């Protein structure tokens, strides 16, 4: 390992241990690491935004290419900053309204199609008991119906309706269980990577 690598990786190991120290109790080392990550992220993002967004999408089109229509969204973006002024914050409602209107116009049709209509059509598949694929489709359709029955609160969950709602709860619980298991795996993966990083660092330092 080169000297620079030893120092930078050593700093990474130190900050990792500072973050882990919160597991015992709050302390200045944890606060140092936490403030560092917030500050570095904010500074990094500001510079990235300047070189990747402001320069190619505002400075170059307006100043160099004289595409004057870019002034309109630029002014709207600047007016958003009036949000921080008590007297002038009402001005920011205009760019926010424009932003919300455009966002909703773009998002609602595609969300309706991609999140509701297409997954809904995926439940309308051939079903049966003669093969695993057909039985799987039956389970999916039954699970979706029962889960939807559970969320229908305009009727009391008794009798047959209640039984279907119960199956819906169990279906949801199976889903949540799978989600929980994957979440555990995800969080543990991050811990494993940190431990592997620290192990490799000390192994290289000690020449093992």
């Amino acid at each position, binding site marked *: 390992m080169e000297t620079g690598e030893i120092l930078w990786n050593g700093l990474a190991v130190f900050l990792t241990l500072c973050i882990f120290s919160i*597991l*015992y109790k709050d302390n200045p080392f944890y606060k140092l690491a936490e403030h560092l990550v917030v500050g570095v*992220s904010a500074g*990094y*993002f500001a510079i*990235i*935004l300047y070189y*990747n*967004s402001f320069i*190619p*999408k505002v400075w*170059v089109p307006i100043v160099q290419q004289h595409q004057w229509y870019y002034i309109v969204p630029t002014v709207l973006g600047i007016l958003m900053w009036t949000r921080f002024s008590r007297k002038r914050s009402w001005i920011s409602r205009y760019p926010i309204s424009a932003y919300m209107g455009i*966002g909703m116009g*773009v*998002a609602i049709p*595609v*969300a309706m*199609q*991609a*999140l509701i209509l*297409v*997954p809904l*059509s*995926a439940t309308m598949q051939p079903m049966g008991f003669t093969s695993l694929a057909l039985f799987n489709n039956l389970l*999916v359709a039954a699970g979706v119906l029962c889960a939807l029955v559970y969320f229908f609160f305009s009727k009391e969950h008794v009798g047959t309706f209640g039984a279907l709602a119960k199956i819906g709860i169990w279906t949801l619980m199976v*889903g949540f269980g*799978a*989600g929980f298991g*994957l*979440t*555990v*795996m*995800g*969080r*543990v*993966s*991050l*811990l*494993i*990577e*940190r*431990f*592997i990083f620290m*192990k490799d660092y000390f192994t290289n330092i000690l020449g093992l």
Partner: protein
Amino acid sequence: MAFYDKLMNLDRRYVYVAMALAVAVPLFIPFQVPIYTTPEVKSVYDFVENLKEGDRFLLAIDYDPNAMAELHPMALTITRQCFAKGVKLFFVTLSQNAPGLAEQLVSRMSKEFNKKNGVDYVYLGYKPYPALVILSMGQNFRISFPMDYYGTPVDSMPIMQGVRNYDDMKGIIAFEAGWVADSWIQNANGRYRAEVALGVTGVMAADYYPYIQSKQIFGLMGGLKGAAEYETLASAKERIASRGMKVQTITHIVVILFIIIGNIGFFMSKRKQI
């Protein structure tokens, strides 16, 4: 205090120590665990394996350093596989903390395979507002990316000749740690019918399986396990994710044991109350 009451009131720091030991100790014990591949990861591998030299493929590196552990191994393996096959890669990033990370991956892989920027690959860089960028790329990449990450006009690059939008890409693999995955599905696949696959963190994986059923994505790699499966399929030379799977197995056993102990304590104390 009864034994099960002690179980219910166990100081959480003992659990932390147990987890730390469960992670640290297996790292020093040489053993392997079998890695079984799942159909959703195999479909991604088969898609990439069927690409031919000169085909164009888009990789979206949309994860921050905090998701690097799970997503970087799969991004590395897929980039290696594509470069080895002579596929022309288009890199983009829609996460604000990812540009440097993506640039590291691109430079490292391009040096390894002796690939030339602008000819064999292009790194378009980062732009904010992922949904709008994904939508604009469906019309023309140049709307959001008139220049690449390094400030070179994209029209001056040989790789961008004849490339307009998703229709000119064989497919897209997006490595996601957040809600941008929904944007790729809704906008790139929903609106422009692009072939999209996702590499997501373990936390998110359960939410995206329905999209395989509905064929809105052609494959899904979930978390470290998905990355390890892909490394196994691709016979990757660098098995970063696979190294972690034996540790995953041990820690999962420890978590299961704690859940069983906790439930025993709960039911015993409930019985005592009755």
